[in-house]
């Protein structure tokens, strides 16, 4: 076996002139294209950075002053009346609102955030159905060009605290008609305090929100708040558009919390 022959055989292989010219021409074309071509790989990082900046610019309106994501063009505030006539309020767009549930001390205090005695005495709103924790938590919405707001609860009801005279309290038919199911009277007083069932949804004109003192009644089972309670706020704008924001209602130990979904 002569490897010199092999070498000679291989060395005799040559590109044809035609192929050689073709390779040169193709390489020149490719070289020209390369010189004119944008180097995409090197621009990827620049494009990514630009994209992030663009996203930030577009996204700025969706962040509130606290830097949290503001998913809607309005702000929802949760309120609760406190015993000292002050109000606890939390902007839900910025943080989660936590309200303490009723404690033993508050049992005879109707003005408390939740009044367990009312629950124990009278049971659920409307007679049948689940038991409710009556909170003093109500909502207010702030935004621009808003015509009306529709609040809906998938579980639970909106209620309104009403004050009745003795006569009104004794008019059972009217009470049923008005869905006023729960009546309480301070000892020695001739003024009754009742709870009126509004239902699981209501609509309020934006400019009249202060006139609607509807609060939340949250269903519970042996003082454990049901899961997956969603409160929806559907905002109807003056231009006919609408926007929805869901709020999750959860129990945290001896308090309930409301947070944007």
């Amino acid at each position: 076996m002569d490897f010199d022959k092999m070498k000679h055989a291989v060395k005799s292989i040559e590109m044809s002139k035609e192929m050689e010219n073709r390779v040169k021409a193709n390489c020149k074309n490719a070289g020209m294209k390369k010189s004119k071509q944008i180097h995409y790989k090197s621009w990827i990082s620049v494009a990514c950075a630009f994209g992030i900046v663009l996203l930030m610019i577009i996204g700025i309106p969706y962040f509130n002053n606290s830097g949290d994501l503001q998913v809607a063009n309005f702000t929802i505030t949760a309120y609760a009346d406190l015993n000292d006539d002050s109000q606890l309020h939390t902007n839900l767009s910025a943080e989660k609102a936590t309200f303490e549930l009723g404690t033993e001390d508050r049992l005879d205090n109707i003005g408390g955030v939740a009044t367990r005695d009312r629950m124990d005495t009278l049971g659920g709103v409307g007679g049948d159905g689940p038991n409710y924790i009556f909170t003093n938590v109500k909502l207010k919405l702030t935004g621009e060009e808003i015509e009306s707001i529709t609040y809906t609860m998938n579980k639970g009801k909106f209620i309104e605290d009403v004050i009745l005279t003795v006569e009104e309290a004794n008019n059972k038919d009217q009470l049923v008609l008005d869905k006023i199911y729960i009546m309480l009277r301070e000892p020695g007083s001739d003024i009754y305090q009742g709870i009126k069932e509004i239902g699981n949804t209501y609509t309020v004109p934006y400019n009249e929100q202060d006139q609607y003192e509807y609060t939340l009644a949250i269903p519970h089972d042996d003082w454990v708040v049901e899961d997956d309670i969603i409160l929806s706020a559907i905002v109807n704008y003056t231009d006919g558009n609408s926007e929805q924001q869901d709020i999750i209602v959860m129990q945290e130990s001896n308090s309930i919390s409301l947070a944007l979904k």
Partner: protein
Amino acid sequence: MQQLVWSAERDIERVVDTYGHMLFRICLVILCNEQDAEDVVQDTIIKYLTKSPTFNDSEHEKAWLITITTNRCKNMRRYNFIRKHMDISNLQLYCQDEENYGLLDDLMKLPDKHKFVLLLHYVEGYKVDEIAKILSITSSAVKKRLQRGRELIRNRYEKETEYGLR
């Protein structure tokens, strides 16, 4: 800009003139296909232009081109599911020495790893250590492949001689 284009064109001319045939024969022996060989040569030269590597000397440049070429050949072989083998009549188009067609055919039928080392050692004249660097393998692996490649091609050659095929 124009000067850059001229410089690139001069480079292409020089590289193809200097190394084109050498690269093509390596590719042809490894790939056994004219079109694939041409593509690999072209890709190698384009890579040379785009990377614009700096070389110590012409030997360094040649070794770099061979490394790129062998790697491209390996990749192309991986993607070629059906291993093509050039018919001896087509081989005549490129091999100017009719006497050694059979020998060349034997070489082309060897496994790639043996072809690489035999080509680089016997045809391009590289030493074992240099081949090890080009192919990124150990020197002992180069030696084994050389030995095995020699045996294979020798056996094939002897069989064909025995059966009167040569």
